[in-house]
């Protein structure tokens, strides 16, 4: 089919042509970026924490009138209270293991610092790697469900305790494989020495776990999201957190048993609805915004495609109506039904083609704008290409119904008055 008559006809419908092309361009720009945002969010939400997330819950509680953690005496008393709690929780029938811990992945309450291969290195200086600390005890690995890939786990003899803000030497630590690879690119990290937070006292790496995410789920933690360090120390303060692993399927029962048993140990504590949380809930809260963003973008894309398709159907129907007589003339002069159908399909392809060319430019422009204002990476080519193909396919699908109606115009229309 020759393009010339189509182009000539389009020149007579400048406004409609421009409107459809513009609409396709804008839709492409928004849909490309929205789908890209959805993809990024899904990727973020689906990254594994390294924990065995089922049958795991966290207790966060606060003592009332607890002794001060600033005196050695107070620290000892607090530690005794914490050990009492741990012993009581470990006695529960549905509980497999319990570990005291200052935070867990996705909780967004972190203790961060830096590790270095040299003693006394300045925090934030060169040769330093940022990390998030988990202060816990010998049951940490089994409670969290971490996979040890080298070295050994903590033993009860390793575990120290200290006041929450005290500075104490950290003779040993377990680190994640990511952190180990960064610090010791050659060979195993086990047995090697590192220095934490600019300290001059060495810390020996005794074990490496496959993966453990830091507590911060926000983008500020992106650069060290897998760099966790486990320290075998119970922190003593007027509050404490315990991670609890339950027997399979006994999560709810174990969670219900917590408050009575802890109040029995010591009633002077704050333990409210928020204090006992399954890990699922912590995960859902951390990723609420990401999930919501993905849903919103999905809904917007869907409606947008429907609106644009409906717009194409509307305008093409109008053109078909306007050109009834001309179509009849063409049919009378020997054009087949398929020719008429192809005419409208090619016309749409031309308009949509122009639209997607502008649309690609707009999509890249919008992506650049989002990159300068928000943490967004460059949109990969496959996203844009898929978007282009989707737009062209949508145009063809939308034009099909009115085009078929046009192809059904009988040749006798040519003889009727318009």
């Amino acid at each position: 089919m020759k393009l010339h008559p189509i182009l000539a006809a389009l020149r007579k419908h400048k406004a409609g042509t421009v409107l459809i092309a513009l609409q396709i361009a804008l839709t492409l720009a928004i849909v490309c970026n929205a789908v890209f945002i959805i993809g990024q969010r899904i990727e973020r939400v689906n990254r594994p924490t390294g924990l065995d997330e089922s049958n795991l819950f966290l207790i966060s509680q606060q003592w009332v009138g607890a002794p001060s953690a600033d005196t050695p005496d107070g620290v000892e008393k607090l530690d005794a209270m914490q050990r009492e709690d741990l012993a009581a929780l470990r006695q529960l029938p549905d509980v497999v293991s319990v570990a005291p811990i200052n935070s867990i992945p996705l909780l967004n309450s972190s203790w961060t610092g830096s590790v270095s291969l040299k003693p006394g290195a300045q925090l934030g200086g060169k040769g330093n790697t940022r990390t998030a600390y988990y202060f816990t005890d010998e049951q940490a690995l089994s409670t969290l469900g971490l996979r040890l890939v080298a070295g050994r786990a903590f033993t009860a003899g390793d575990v120290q305790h200290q006041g929450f803000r005290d500075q104490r030497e950290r003779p040993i630590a377990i680190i994640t494989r990511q952190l180990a690879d960064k610090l010791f690119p050659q060979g195993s990290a086990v047995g090697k020495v590192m220095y934490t937070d600019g300290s001059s006292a060495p810390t020996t790496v005794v074990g490496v776990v496959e993966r453990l995410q830091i507590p911060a789920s926000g983008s500020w933690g992106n650069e060290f999201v897998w760099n966790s360090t486990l320290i075998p120390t119970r922190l003593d303060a007027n509050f404490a957190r315990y991670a609890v692993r339950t027997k399979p399927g006994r999560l709810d029962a174990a969670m219900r048993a917590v408050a009575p048993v802890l109040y029995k140990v010591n009633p002077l504590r704050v333990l409210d609805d928020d204090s006992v949380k399954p890990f699922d809930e912590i995960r859902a809260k951390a990723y609420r915004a990401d999930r919501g963003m993905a849903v919103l973008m999905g809904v917007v894309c869907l409606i947008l495609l429907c609106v644009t398709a409906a717009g194409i159907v509307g305008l093409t129907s109008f053109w078909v109506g306007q050109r009834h007589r001309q179509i009849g003339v063409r049919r009378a002069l020997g054009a087949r039904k398929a020719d008429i159908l192809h005419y409208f399909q090619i016309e749409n392809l031309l308009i949509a083609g122009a639209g997607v060319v502008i649309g690609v430019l707009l999509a890249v422009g919008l992506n650049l704008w989002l990159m300068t204002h928000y943490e967004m990476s460059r949109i990969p080519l496959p996203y844009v290409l898929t978007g282009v193909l989707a737009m062209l396919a949508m145009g063809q699908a939308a034009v099909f119904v009115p085009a078929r109606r046009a192809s059904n115009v009988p040749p006798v229309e040519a003889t009727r008055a318009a």
Partner: protein
Amino acid sequence: MRQSHGSRARRFSAPRIPSPDSRTLSMLAYYLQLGLRSLRRNPALTTLMVMAIGFGVAASMITWSVFRAVSGNPIPGKSAQLFTPQVDGWGPQQNLKGEPAEALGYVDAMALLRAHQAKRQTLLYPLRLSVIPQGSRELPLNADGYAVTADFFAMFEVPFRYGGGWSAQDDEARGSEVVISSKLNQKLFGGADSVGRTIGLGGHDFRIVGVVSHWNPRPRFYDLFSTSGFADEPDIYMVFNRALDLQMRTGGRNSCRGSISYTSWQGYLQSNCVWVTPWVELDSPADVARYHRFLENYAADQQRAGRFGWAANVRLRDVMQWLDYEHVVPPESRIALVVALGFFLICLVNTIGLLLAKFMRRAGEIGVRRALGATRREIYTQYLVEAGTVGLAGGVLGLLFTALGVSGVGILFQPEIARLARLDLSLVGLTFVVAILATVAAAFYPAWRAAHVQPAWQLKSS
């Protein structure tokens, strides 16, 4: 001359209409009627347009209601008089890419407070405490709040239900005064006037001097160091010096630089850790300039004294600058608004196309009307009014979607932020205004095309 000629020409074309004013009005009413009737004429096309406008307006309104809530001015009357001073105690190697820390350490905070260079000043840091309800067997409750100085209440215009704040003398006396929220007052005392009563906080007794009626400015401009700006209302406000005496650690953020070496409370206070947020009230630009000079001199003095090994690096931001610097508006909110506006734009482009189709289908009718003496202006008005009715219908639908959406924004934002999105009267009004104005604007071109239909051609071909 020309004007009178023009009006005479018009009178000639429509001689039966007596007064121009009543004529315009009655014609507008008539056009409205025509428009409403024409809504029913092409139901598919009309539904499409109304749906597109409804979706577009609703998406924009939902995201706008959230954006409006998070980007608003939390203290409109005084936002230009309240400033948070920042002094760089970390130096160029360790500060935030050239910017000083977002809070102060104890030493600098106390120095600014004692210098008393502003009309009012306060220091604050968050506390997380527990309270034991008295005389009952109830279990302990959480009580979160702030350690503040006396000026806090006047500076931030905190409204009181009972009693009031404490005095500067109480600050000096390191007294056990405490101000509580109505919510806590309700829980502990059943809402009665509790001024003068005693309350046990973190194992120490305090005397209640005031009960705040509901006060929770959002974003919480005064504590963006420890909160994202959308926390629940604080329960207590305690004398700053008293909290220090009791060695109450901050319940919020604490940020330190260098090798951490302190082992005691005194050591912690003298360290470079930042955890105190300072605020000052300055009335005039001259005061602001003077305070800024004071900050620079202070930092320079510290350099001379050898405490700082770098040149003065200070900031003095007011409330709105501070909100902006701290990126209080969540990125989700802004991106969602941009996407929604883009969506609305596409819906409008769509509407232009569909209106064009709808109007031009009636080219024959327009030709007849023109031939019978209707001016282009009249045709133009008629079609704009008709577009307005489409906009009105779109607005009704949009309002429905907005109501649905506002109750569902919880999926996108934290509950604290989602709660801020409300369907109030101004949002309802805005929905209609935007729907109608946008549709009428979209109709300019299609109506212009309709007005330029040549009467002769139409009459000839039909």
